[in-house]
């Protein structure tokens, strides 16, 4: 039996009827067409499906869409403002932190959640924050550098 859910996705109120066995990643991709969130392993191991729910990064493959009722969800599509990339996205471009790109949305959202609570993380803290996001191109070094760069540029704009 379908359930009506209502949630905020990237700042917009969304209402839909969903089957209980539909995961949040399926709902975002199939019902809302937000295909920036990737469906990887489906088991919480790879982090490709990372979204930010109520301020915390979660594996959207292990959250039911019905569980997101009343919550706030941020996906990679919600980062850019007025056509301008978010500083973390820009840093990933500038630092060459994107290879095949499949892990990138998850990496960027994990980085976003980290920088929101810890604007000046150490390298170790960055590595811990993205430790649930696998990059099979193994471009971790560039990703870490991009997050360091993003931290600097966000700090620069706020001062």
């Amino acid at each position, binding site marked *: 039996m379908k*359930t009506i859910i209502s949630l905020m996705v990237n700042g917009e109120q969304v209402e839909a009827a969903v089957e*209980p066995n539909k995961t949040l990643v399926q709902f975002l991709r199939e019902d809302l067409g937000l295909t920036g969130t990737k469906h990887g392993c489906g088991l*919480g*191991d790879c982090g490709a499906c990372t979204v930010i729910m109520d301020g915390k990064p979660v594996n959207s493959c292990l959250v039911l869409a019905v569980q997101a009722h009343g919550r706030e969800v941020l996906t990679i599509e919600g980062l850019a403002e007025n056509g301008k990339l978010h500083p973390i996205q820009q840093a990933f471009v500038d630092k060459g932190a994107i290879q095949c790109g499949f892990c990138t949305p998850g990496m960027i959202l994990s980085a976003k959640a980290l920088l929101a609570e810890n604007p000046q993380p150490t390298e170790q803290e960055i590595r811990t924050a993205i*430790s649930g996001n696998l990059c099979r191109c193994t471009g971790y070094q560039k990703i870490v550098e991009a997050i360091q760069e993003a931290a600097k540029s966000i700090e620069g704009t706020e001062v």
Partner: protein
Amino acid sequence: MLLPKFEYHEPSTLEEALQLLSSLGGNAKVLAGGTDLLVRMKQRIDKPAHVISIARVPGLDAIIPRNGHGVTIGSAVTARELSRHELIIDRFTPLAIAASRLGAPMIRNRATIGGNLVNARPAADLPPACMVLNATVKLKSAKGERDVSVNEFFRGPGDCVIEPHELMVCLNIETPAPWSGGSYIKLGARKTLEISMVNVATLLTLEGPDGPIIDARIALGAVAPTPLRAFGAEEFLIGNKPSEELFQRAGEIGVGFCSPITDHRGTMEYRCMMIEALTKRCLMRAWENARAWKP
């Protein structure tokens, strides 16, 4: 991977949740963080006809200090909350460290203490920490409630004493005595998203900063069908002055309580060597924390 079909229930009170469990019992699974249950359902290991989410039952996600005597931890408290909560870090250290080593950040944001205990995996992170803290769990059903020591909670891999109509609502833990300190060490091939090859939790209580050991607790995970307490090694420590040599001997005794298996994570021989080494190391850390105890 897709989930099989099931009927979803989202009770908004504890009474409603217990009623559902009492009527659906064996056909239902409780959904807390979902980091184990949804994986098992996708793999078709669990095929419940009904799923009861406890996310909207009020109060299950609270950490409530009890006037310095102890703490009540709701069963839906996440690993993230445990690893960052000042009181847990300060007084119930093994639990905070174990929670910080569970899974990866996204998993810790969802995984709950209740789920980690009820799943009863031999290598789980939180059980050994709860065991050295002598935690008791409160199990409620529509008909009544009972308190069970975590030390008597596990029966085998994936098996514990909870009945299908029962819900774990909270854990109660007494604050360890003055001059207590504890720690937790997890050994794996990598630092994150790892299932322990061996894990150890310890708690030591000293008579004073330089005094002898008046209480000692050691729990080991991934070394037997259930996590276990190395009671013999604990008794050996009590009454003695702490030292590296003493802890080495306790580790050697501790190995005798274990029956590790050989699997793709490590061999039985290697696990035995690591039980010895990590017990000693974890006791050293507990000693350090006990000496640094502050009122």
